[in-house]
Structures are given as C-alpha cells and as structure tokens.
C-alpha cells in the first residue's frame, strides 16, 4: 500500500513539479517550486552564484529555482499562510525519507520530525517564527 501511494505521488508530481521524491514536500512554502531541482538541493533560498540574468550557476541554461520560487510566491494566488512560510528556516533533509510518499509522511507527521538539536537557538528565531 505504501509503495502504491508513493507510485501515485510520483506519477502525479513528477511531470508537474519535477518531484525528486525527497519524501518531505515543501512545495506549498516555496511558491510551488521544488527546491530539490536546485543542483545544490538548497531548501532555504538561492546561493550567491545566481547569474546576472537570474540563471543557475551550475546549469546556465536554467533559471534559478529560487528566483522562480520567489516570483511565484509573490505573483501566484496562493494562500497567505503558504506565502508566510516562504521565509521559514527549513531543516536539513531527512535522508531516510527519500523515495517514500510525502503525502503519507504529511498525514503521519513523519515529515515534521527533526533531530533534538534542531531547535530555536535565538530569541529572534522565536519572534520571527522561523522554526519549522
């Protein structure tokens, strides 16, 4: 059953969003732009290597994934709660979830598990709601 759900998810999200099956989907908080398509798989915004034309340091023919995410978050009619999450500090990927269904992980809350050391370290992070 689990494999079946993962397969359905892959078939749906693969062609539309370029889903990389990380198993911990954050599409809603990144302007419906999959950050795992960034060659560096960055989940917290663009690196310093974005070219003058807004294209990727690694793949010059491709627009920076995070520029797309930024523009879409501004322009698309997404729920404001999703837009608010754009600036959240997303935790490092849990590599054990690779290939599993993020839908299942969402409903079981497995995708929100973080290691004990990953918690707010500053008052500012609490104030700004950057925790995941």
């Amino acid at each position, binding site marked *: 059953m689990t494999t079946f759900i993962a397969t359905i998810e892959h078939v749906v999200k693969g062609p539309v969003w370029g889903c990389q099956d990380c198993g911990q989907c954050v599409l809603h908080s990144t302007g419906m732009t999959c950050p795992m398509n960034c*060659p*560096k*798989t*960055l*989940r*917290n*915004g*663009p*690196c*310093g*290597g*974005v*070219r*003058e034309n*807004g294209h990727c*340091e*690694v793949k*010059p023919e491709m627009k*920076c994934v*995070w*520029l797309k995410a*930024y*523009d879409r978050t501004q322009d698309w009619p997404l729920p404001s709660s999703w837009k608010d999450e754009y*600036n959240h*500090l*997303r*935790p*490092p*990927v849990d*590599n054990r979830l690779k290939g599993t269904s993020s839908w299942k992980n969402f409903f079981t809350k497995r995708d929100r598990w973080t*290691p*004990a*050391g*990953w*918690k707010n*370290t*500053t008052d*500012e*992070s609490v104030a*700004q709601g*950057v925790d995941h």
Partner: protein
Amino acid sequence: MSTLEQKLMNTTETVFTAEFHSLDGNGLEKAKKYADRFRGWFDGVNATDNTAAHAHVSNVASAIAIKQLGLEPILQIVCRDKNRLAQQADIMGASMFGVENFVALTGDDVTAGDEPEARRVFDTDGPQLVRLMGTLKRGEYMSGRKIDPAPHMFIGAVENPGAPPFEYRVQRVAKKYAAGAKFLQLQICYHQDRLEKFCAGVRDAGLAGKIAIIPTVVLVKGARPLNFMHNSVPGIDVPADQIARVEMAADPAEEAYLQTLEFAQHALAQPGVRGLHLTDFRNDETLERLMTDLGRVRQTAANSSTTNEVKDDHAYSA
C-alpha cells in the same frame, strides 16, 4: 572571547578581516610567510574551505596554523564537500585548538573547480549550517547529545548583495540572523547601488546593530582579473565602465588601486557596515598602502598591548 567578537559586540571599532591564501604544500613555512604579511593589520583571517571548489590544505589545518602563527583565524565552512557529521567534527576539532570564529557558506558548486566529476554533498545549506553551529555553541550535537563544556563560538555567515533576487537577499540575512549569525561577510560587489540598497534594506528590516556587515574588496593590478571575475565567476558582475576605467587608464595598476580604495571607502560609509574584508593576490604590494589609506595603523607587539588593555575594559564594562 575572540578579538573579532570582542570588537564587534563590545565596541564600535571598525574591523578588518582578510582571506588567508590557499596552501598547497611547503609546510608551515609558506603559511608563516603569508601570516607575516597580514600580521598586525587584521582582526581575523579566513581559513578558506577548498576555494572555488579546488582542493587545498584543509580549512581546519589552515585555521590551526593561523592560530599557532599568532593570528586570529575565522574558520570558513562550506556545504559542498562534507555532510553534517563531518561539519560538526571539523568545528569541534578546530575548537579544540582554540579556533573561535566560524563562518558558514553554501559554497561554489563542484563544477566551478578542477574536479567537476566529484560528488557534490550539500547535506546542509548555508542557513542550516548557521543553525547547526548554533546548536554546537549551545552545547549539543545535532542529535541532541550533550557537549560539556560547549565550544566557544562566534558565528557568521556570507551573503551576496550583488546577485539576484536583490530584494530577497535581505530576507536571507534575516533568516541567517535568526539562525544565530552575528556577522556577515559579503561577497565582492562592484555595483555600489546594490550594496547601498542591501545595507539600507538590512537596516530597514530592523537588523542594524544586530548583525555586523563586512563587505569585501579585492586588490587587483589591472583589468584582467576584473574581466576574469566578470566572465568566469557566477554571482559577480563587474560593470563595463568599471573595467574600462582600469583598462583605458595610463597606469592601470594605479587606477585599479584607486578603484579599490573608492569601493572600500564607499562600503565603509554604508549603514550597518562594521568593517571590511580584504581579498588579494599573494604578491600585491598595495595591501599596506590600502590599509594605511583607510586609516589603519599596523599593530606591533609594542602598541598592541595598550590596545588590549582598552579592549579588556570594554569587555568588563559590557
């Protein structure tokens, strides 16, 4: 407390940091030669982490060498080459040798280097690495396993004010600040208007005085390195008039120097800027000239002891 932290957190003094040159052999002799060149001029020296995705002497070994040679290291850690376990091990290892300043950055991709076939890691990204550093500083590994005593750490990050999306760069600073960064070394930016907007943006985001901005300037001897950066380093755009200015000058080396001096003075005048980070090529004789023109007095054993007393006063009164 490191000198860099002391100065940035407890005084209003301008700080100067520099990029230590990459090491590729010749033992400590070479490191000593570089250290002597920088000695007395800088509050911190960056031990770089495989710059431009080329393998060199490791960042941790360089930082320890810098420390042993009497300079204050800033351990640079990129996300390209090591996973989160190795990053934590490097920080703890450097900390054991008294390294206290750390700066987190994403890092160039492997394809920027001379071994583009290597596997890229990016197990963490820049902001995540900042928080990971904060975790260690608090006395825990990422797993939650305790570290007693906790390492003493002064944590910084890097941002590029000159690469799109410009307005979003400020939000990234807020994110890194919230994750625990207290200082921010900027990538070189040849667009003064972009630096101005960036610094004003950081101020308007309410981060003035909370995160110390340290822009970078580069000492070059002519138009060639400017062209190289413009054409070959993604994220750095050098306006045509700035290149032409050096290229067409009767004395390109002098013009290049004056250009750097102008950029340095302009950067230091921006809100929230607490210092300057300097990159140069190892044989550039204009280093001392620039520092002198910026009003810096080289510290020697004789005059630094007085300064130290003043610093301690600040530390205790804070």
